[in-house]
């Protein structure tokens, strides 16, 4: 078994604050220019099928800031219950809502209030009654045990210092046999311990 890497020595509250500041900017000014791509150009890079974006209010698309595409791992069945970890402006939650239909449920969870407000407005504008957005952290999700058929996430798990704790929380909310469909990053080169403590590198 591969040994579990040590938890980086960073102040979690400071890290969360820096991440919230960054993504509040992505919510308010998605075209400002970040160290990552955003919006429709990013959706194209990440190979989102155009059909997935149909019917999604534009503000939810504009603030996309993910690193992959959870839906390339397979469609989500009608009637399923889905949790979207770090739902941002709501694009992936709303795509999931289209897939699960009126009989399914989607809970999007994010820690950045500006993103939550934007996602809620998009869901209301698009008439997605099967979606709700909640404030929360990956390590303590506001979801009951064994609720979800599928957990999706896009570019968020890498921002959690204690990754085993975070994945245990995803395990908790999944039903037995439930699926993870996750987009994240892979770092090919060793990251020095000093760099892991540099919060600027976590967000840039």
């Amino acid at each position: 078994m591969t040994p579990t890497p040590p938890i980086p020595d960073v102040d979690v509250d400071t890290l969360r604050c820096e991440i919230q500041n960054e993504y509040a900017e992505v919510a308010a000014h998605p075209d400002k220019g970040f160290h990552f791509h955003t919006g429709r150009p990013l959706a194209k890079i990440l190979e989102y099928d155009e059909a997935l974006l149909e019917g999604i209010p534009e503000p939810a698309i504009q603030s996309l800031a993910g690193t992959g595409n959870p839906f390339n791992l397979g469609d989500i069945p009608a009637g399923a219950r889905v949790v979207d970890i770090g739902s941002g402006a709501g694009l992936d939650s709303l795509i999931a809502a289209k897939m699960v239909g009126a009989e399914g449920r989607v809970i999007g969870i994010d820690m950045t209030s500006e993103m939550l407000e934007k996602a809620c407005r998009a869901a209301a504008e698009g008439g997605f009654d099967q979606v709700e957005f909640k404030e929360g952290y990956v390590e303590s999700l506001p979801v009951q045990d064994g609720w979800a058929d599928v957990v999706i996430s896009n570019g968020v798990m890498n921002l959690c210092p204690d990754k085993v704790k975070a994945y245990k929380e995803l395990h908790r909310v999944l039903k037995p046999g439930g699926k993870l469909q996750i987009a994240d990053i892979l770092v090919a080169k060793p990251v020095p311990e000093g760099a892991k403590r540099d919060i600027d590198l976590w967000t840039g």
Partner: protein
Amino acid sequence: MVAAAGLENFEITWSKEVFDGAPQSSSAAAFGTTGINFRANKPL
């Protein structure tokens, strides 16, 4: 980490250099960072 959390059948299905050409310079290239998609599941 995924397996340590009790999840199984971890599989990376896609990888791409998603930070190339971003408006601001990034530390991504220095560490060989790519975007990935992966799946896993909770055991029955």
